């Protein structure tokens, strides 16, 4: 760490900066400092090595698919050329594009309204807005069908008014609606975090110069939030191509659905999964190329956020918020409550007793909370070097590790789980980890690391380099600079990343079913059990507890921090 920078010696002028009076120091520094990246000429190889190692860890699922394909002697080429691959793949891509665009619009709009405007009950909406993410898509889709399909609850409710028939909810439309409503928080959370840490001075200046709020949004806010929107949009895209629950119930034949329906025939399903991984890697690479051209303005934590009075638009804005949160959160909650209530009203109808015993859900709730929290913290910390490298030092190593981390999100949980089974059991040293909590947490980290790395990247990009430079000039070491200068500034972004991983891990099902120690149940596995047994009373009860628990954790981790700004 004894670089010239650390001792404050400017190479070109030969002056020891610390010897200079304060006033000249800043000015001199400003004048002579070459364009970045000057920092970390020595540090970056280490970070690069660490990132590469992390990338290799995250390559576990893709590596497994390659090895399996080879071992199965699968005819990868004929699988790739077959219309049975291309047709589902094109449906996957259609769905993913539609869902990510919709989620980007909803998430960005909501984030702006809840951080920048005077829409009523902002604090409440800020607590509720991220929650739809915790609803497992099979539960959400089942609830949506029960509520909105022909003959469903809404139709029964409206029948006295003479409404004839609800339109059929299925296929692309159904899957698009359900996935958009349950994934917009992937955009909302990072964009809200970005806006919370964006200096209001930019928007204030624009307004003082006479720009109308809409113009300010278009010319200032949108470009500044662009990286967060892209980050979130990419996650939505990858989620949409990996989702099984919603497309299955909405009967939309995507590639992932094809993988599931052929899973007992690995010679077909493994190459198909490989195609999914390749698509993910390609999309990540494309997104990264696009993100190179985007500028970031570094941010500081401001004391008072800007607030745009909506005036006569206030009612309309509130209506929009109510519609989004109402459809994505209240509608499923009402259906879950209806199921729970109906079950409680008809106890003991002869089959297996209606387990509406809340006590039986305490252990699953504690389990859910603790493994998800562990996964969130580990994920945010583990991918930090990768995020740091991708933002600060663009290199092929950065790109590769980033792509490997992100691609894990595009694969179905079942594939991630089987891959970890393969790797754990293939080595004598790792066997002891099999079906233990640490392996389950690691599975979550591999599966959801993408969410952490994107949030970490947004957070790192938001730290002003000038502060770091100043601290370095003042003689602070790299680690100390990182912990005392950068981490506090990154906190809103890191919290958003942890929140995303947390909510995803809480609802994760296939990997949990396969990798958790026997007898270790989570709320998601209870939900699956209840749904499989057609036990809707318990689906309702368990679903409500899952949502309530995630509300508490989201508030503690994400919202409270952001609310300090209010």
């Amino acid at each position, binding site marked *: 760490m004894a670089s010239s920078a650390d001792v404050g010696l400017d190479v070109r002028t030969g002056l020891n900066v610390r010897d200079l009076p304060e006033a000249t120091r800043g000015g001199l520094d400003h004048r002579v400092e070459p364009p970045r990246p000057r920092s970390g000429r020595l540090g970056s190889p280490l970070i690069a090595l660490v990132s590469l190692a992390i990338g290799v860890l995250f390559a576990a699922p893709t590596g497994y698919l390659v090895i399996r394909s080879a071992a199965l002697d699968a005819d990868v080429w004929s699988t790739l050329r077959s219309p049975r691959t291309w047709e589902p793949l094109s449906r996957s891509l259609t769905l993913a594009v539609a869902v990510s665009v919709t989620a980007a619009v909803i998430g960005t709009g909501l984030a702006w309204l809840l951080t920048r405007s005077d829409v009523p009950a902002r604090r409440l909406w800020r607590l509720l807005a991220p929650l739809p993410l915790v609803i497992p898509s099979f539960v959400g889709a089942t609830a949506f069908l029960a509520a909105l399909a022909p003959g469903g609850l809404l139709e029964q409710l409206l029948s006295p008014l003479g409404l004839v028939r609800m339109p059929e909810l299925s296929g692309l439309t159904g899957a698009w609606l359900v996935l958009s409503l349950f994934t917009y928080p992937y955009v909302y959370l990072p964009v809200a975090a970005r806006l919370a840490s964006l200096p209001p001075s930019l928007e204030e200046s624009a307004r003082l110069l006479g720009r109308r709020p809409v113009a300010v949004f278009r010319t200032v806010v949108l470009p500044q939030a662009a990286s967060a929107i892209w980050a979130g949009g990419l996650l939505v895209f990858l989620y949409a191509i990996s989702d099984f629950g919603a497309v299955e119930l909405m009967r939309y034949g995507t590639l992932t659905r094809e993988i599931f329906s*052929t899973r007992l*025939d690995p010679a077909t399903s493994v190459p198909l999964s490989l195609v999914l991984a390749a698509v993910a890697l390609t999309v990540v690479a494309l997104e990264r190329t696009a993100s190179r051209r985007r500028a970031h303005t570094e941010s500081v934590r401001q004391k008072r956020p800007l607030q745009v009075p909506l005036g006569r638009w206030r009612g309309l804005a509130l209506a929009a918020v109510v519609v989004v949160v109402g459809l994505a959160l209240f509608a499923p909650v009402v259906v879950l409550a209806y199921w729970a209530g109906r079950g409680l009203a008809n106890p003991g109808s002869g089959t297996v007793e209606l387990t509406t015993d809340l006590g039986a859900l305490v252990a699953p709730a504690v389990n859910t909370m603790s493994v998800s929290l*562990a996964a969130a913290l580990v994920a945010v910390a583990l991918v930090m070097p990768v995020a740091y490298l991708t933002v600060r030092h663009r290199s092929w190593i950065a790109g590769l590790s980033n792509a490997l981390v992100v691609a894990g999100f595009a694969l179905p949980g079942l594939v991630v789980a089987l891959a970890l089974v393969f790797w754990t059991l293939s080595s004598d040293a790792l066997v002891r980890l099999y079906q233990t909590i640490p392996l389950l947490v690691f599975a979550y980290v591999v599966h959801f690391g993408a969410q952490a790395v994107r949030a970490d990247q947004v957070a790192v990009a938001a730290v002003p380099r000038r502060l770091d430079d100043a601290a370095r000039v003042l003689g602070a070491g790299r680690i100390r600079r990182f912990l005392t200068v950068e981490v506090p500034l990154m906190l809103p972004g890191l919290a958003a990343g942890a929140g995303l991983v947390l909510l995803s891990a809480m609802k994760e099902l296939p990997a949990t079913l396969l990798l958790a120690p026997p007898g270790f149940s989570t709320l998601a596995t209870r939900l699956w059990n209840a749904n499989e047994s057609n036990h809707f009373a318990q689906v309702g009860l368990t679903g409500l507890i899952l949502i309530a628990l995630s509300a508490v954790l989201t508030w503690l981790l994400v919202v409270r921090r952001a609310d300090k700004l209010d």
Partner: protein
Amino acid sequence: MRTVSRLRSAVVALLAIAIPLVGAACTDEGGGGGGGITLTVYSGRTEELIRPVLDRFREQTGIGYELKSGDSADLALLIDQEGDRSPADVFISQSPGATGFLEQAGRFRPLPEDILDRVAPAHRSPNGSWVGISGRVRTLVYNKNLVDPATLPRSVLDLTDPAYRGKVAIAPQNGSFQDFVSAMRVELGDERTAEWLRGMAANQSPVYANNTAIVAAVGRGEVPMGLVNHYYNVRAQAEDPNVASVNYFFPDGDLGSLLLVTATGVLRTSSHPQEAEELVRFLLAEESQRYFADQTKEYPLAAGVPPGPNLPPLSSIEANTVNFEVLGAAFRSTIQMIKDSGVER
């Protein structure tokens, strides 16, 4: 201030790691106690439907158990991936496809004669790999407000008649429908099966994700009828006595009333094969069979226990031998055949 928040984060992190470890220790409730043997059971049946029986087994024998519940096909893939290191002793499969997959992979340890002899030859593996413990019957669920029972068909093969156009829901991507099609192939041959599937496709049979979704749709009147397993509507009626959906069983041993067997087998890699066989015997004993009849509303397959009320006797149900080995081998081509018929839409 910052120190406080860092301290708080550290505490949260510690808790996050400590709690699940404690939790894991707590949930190990199936342990045998006193250093006894503990069996690892992988079950495609949900916990609610199997844990009470396993608890009784532990009480009576002192042999403990650990239970992993999940989708039958997923668990079969897990056992396959685990290979020689699989901790599983016993596999209970809800789906013949998953059973056939493991049988084909040679993962079962043949069961002794005394176990196999407890069920009819139709309900066990010809090579002794597995034995059926309970059964579910394919049925036509219909909405009593929309359908006159007198107009219901005598055979599942009649559903391709134009009279049923757009009226019969199916779940072609669901395991039990696929098993039914495989059985039809064994019974009637590929040509007639493909013809039936094309007929269903031409009749524009509405497609649903699974049995649960069909029963729910029939219940709310979205579609008048649907092909499902009998058990789902029994459950739906338990939760909502006013539900309009009713089970109809095709008469005279029609293929439409096929019995799908919940199978169980001991794995070749089991480290406690004797105790594992003991568990299989217990699942076939009268007490467990009665549980399946009374509590889970399934067909008992052993010990002469009759099925619950409102269910036709086992002898009137199609007890045609569906060779699971054939089923397993047919699995891939059955899926392909379903796809090719265009019935999935």
